[in-house]
Structure formats: structure tokens, C-alpha cells
């Protein structure tokens, strides 16, 4: 049992660090989104992207979640996710897209050590995310 103390401790410390990171990112993003929404700015922005998002069965607001995920990280996208009312289908589609494509400025650089060039990685992940969202939404609509 004693052997387990070290890994359990590492796990707890890492969880604490991750949760603190989540708090630092999600709380401010949620606040900004709430204020922008209050003044109707999100609505204006969302309306212009609604046609594009309809390919994924998502509301226009989802654009903000996607853009935040691509450029910042997916925790920031979670801040927006909390502010939107989405169906389970929509949340899953959005989660798949965000899961595939997030934190590009950091992760593409990290991944470039494998020989995968940064622009290639970005294009690969953005197009895969869009393809996955479109296809998954299609399948959902066919099944239901």
C-alpha cells in the first residue's frame, strides 16, 4: 500500500493544478461571454455565423466556442459551452470538433518535433474537425 502513496500524491497535485488552471480560464471567459450576451453583442455575432454553423446543426454562438478552442484552448471553449443551451446531439458534435482541434498555437508547435510542419498540422486539424462535425451531425440526423 505504501508504494501507492507517491503516484496518488502526484495525481492529486496534478488534479489540483488542472482545476486551478480551469478556474483561471473558464471563470473570466464565462464572465466576458455573459456580459457580451447581456448587451446583445454575442447575438449579433452569432447571427452572422448562423448559416455556416447550420452545416453542423449548431447555433451561431457555437462559432465563439470553436474560435476560442482553436486559438486559446478547449477550457476557454468550455466557458462558452456553459453559457449556451444545447441539445445532447449539439454538445456531442461540438465536443468532437473541439476535441480534434484545440490550442493550435501551442500544440502544433509541440507536434512539429515529429516532423509535421506547423501549417500542415493546423490545416489537418481544422479540416478534420469540420469534416467530423459535419459527418457526425449528418449521422445523428439520419439515425433520429
Amino acid at each position, binding site marked *: 500500500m505504501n508504494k501507492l502513496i507517491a503516484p496518488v500524491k502526484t495525481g492529486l497535485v496534478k488534479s489540483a493544478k488542472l482545476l486551478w488552471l480551469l*478556474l483561471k480560464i473558464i471563470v473570466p471567459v464565462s*464572465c466576458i461571454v455573459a456580459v457580451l450576451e447581456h448587451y446583445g453583442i454575442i447575438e449579433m455575432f452569432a447571427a452572422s455565423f448562423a448559416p455556416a454553423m447550420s452545416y453542423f446543426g449548431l447555433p451561431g454562438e457555437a462559432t465563439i466556442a470553436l474560435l476560442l478552442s482553436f486559438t486559446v484552448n478547449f477550457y476557454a471553449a468550455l*466557458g462558452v459551452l*456553459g453559457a449556451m443551451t444545447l441539445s445532447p446531439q449539439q*454538445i456531442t458534435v461540438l465536443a468532437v470538433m473541439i476535441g480534434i482541434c484545440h490550442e493550435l498555437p501551442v500544440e502544433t508547435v509541440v*507536434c512539429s518535433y*515529429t*516532423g*509535421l510542419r506547423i501549417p500542415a*498540422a493546423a490545416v489537418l486539424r481544422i479540416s478534420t474537425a469540420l469534416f467530423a462535425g459535419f459527418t457526425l451531425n449528418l449521422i445523428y440526423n439520419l439515425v433520429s
Partner: protein
Amino acid sequence: MEILYLLATTIADTILNIARLALLLVPVMVLIEIARYYQLIEKLTGRIKGALEFLTLPQEAAFPLLAGLFFGIVLGSALIIDYAREGILKKRDLLLIGIFLSISHSVVEDTLIFAVFGANPIILLTTRTILAIVITRIAASLIDRNSPVESLRN
């Protein structure tokens, strides 16, 4: 005043959401650490032979691939850099691992977090894994067709 109330409720909601997440995240992170302590990945590497053969990757690719898949792209890439330096894997294999991990990495943590927010974890996991496998396989064919293997040796 209205704005202050709005901010207060937003902050309270967000903290509640993160607390809900913590209930799941903490045990899973501890389990991951225990798995790492018992070197579970090393024990798993022999079992994914079939998958590696399909991806046309050598046996040596198993460890960085699994590590990145479960523990994240940073750890996966760090191992890859190490492997590259020691010349264990060919450039072609490194690139393929990079493509695979770009699309699918730290699957436990990511899937869990989204599940707490209401996404279907099984669909999330299978979609990402299938796409990663298919795209890596296509990339492997493209690389092998366009460049003779010799030119890609380190």
C-alpha cells in the same frame, strides 16, 4: 447593479460546474498516475500489434503512441523527440505518429471533461479514434507512394 448580479451568478455557476468536474477528474487523474507507476503502457505495447500493422508502424512506435494517446501530446512528443534523437524510429514513422496524435491525444481527460458538460463520451471517443486511424493510414499510403523509403531515413 444588474451587471454585478449577472457576474456573481455566472461565477457561481462556473465554479459549480468545475466542482462537478473535480468529482470525476480527481479520481481519474489519480488512476492515471497509478497506471503510470505500474508502467501499464509498457505492458500494453505488445497488445496493439494488429493496430500498428494496420498503420504500417513498427513495434517501437507503440510506446510514444500510447503515451500520447492517454497522457497527452506534450508527453507523446517529448518521447518522440527522444526516439528521434536515438534514431529508433524512421522519419516517416515519426511523422505518422505526429499525425495520429494531432487528432487524438489525452483521450481520458478530454472525454471526461466533455462528458461532464453533457457530451456522449462513447461517440466522442470512437469518432476521434476512427478518424485518427483512418487519416494516419491514408497519410502512410501517400508518403510511401510519393517518396522512396530510402530518402526518409534519418
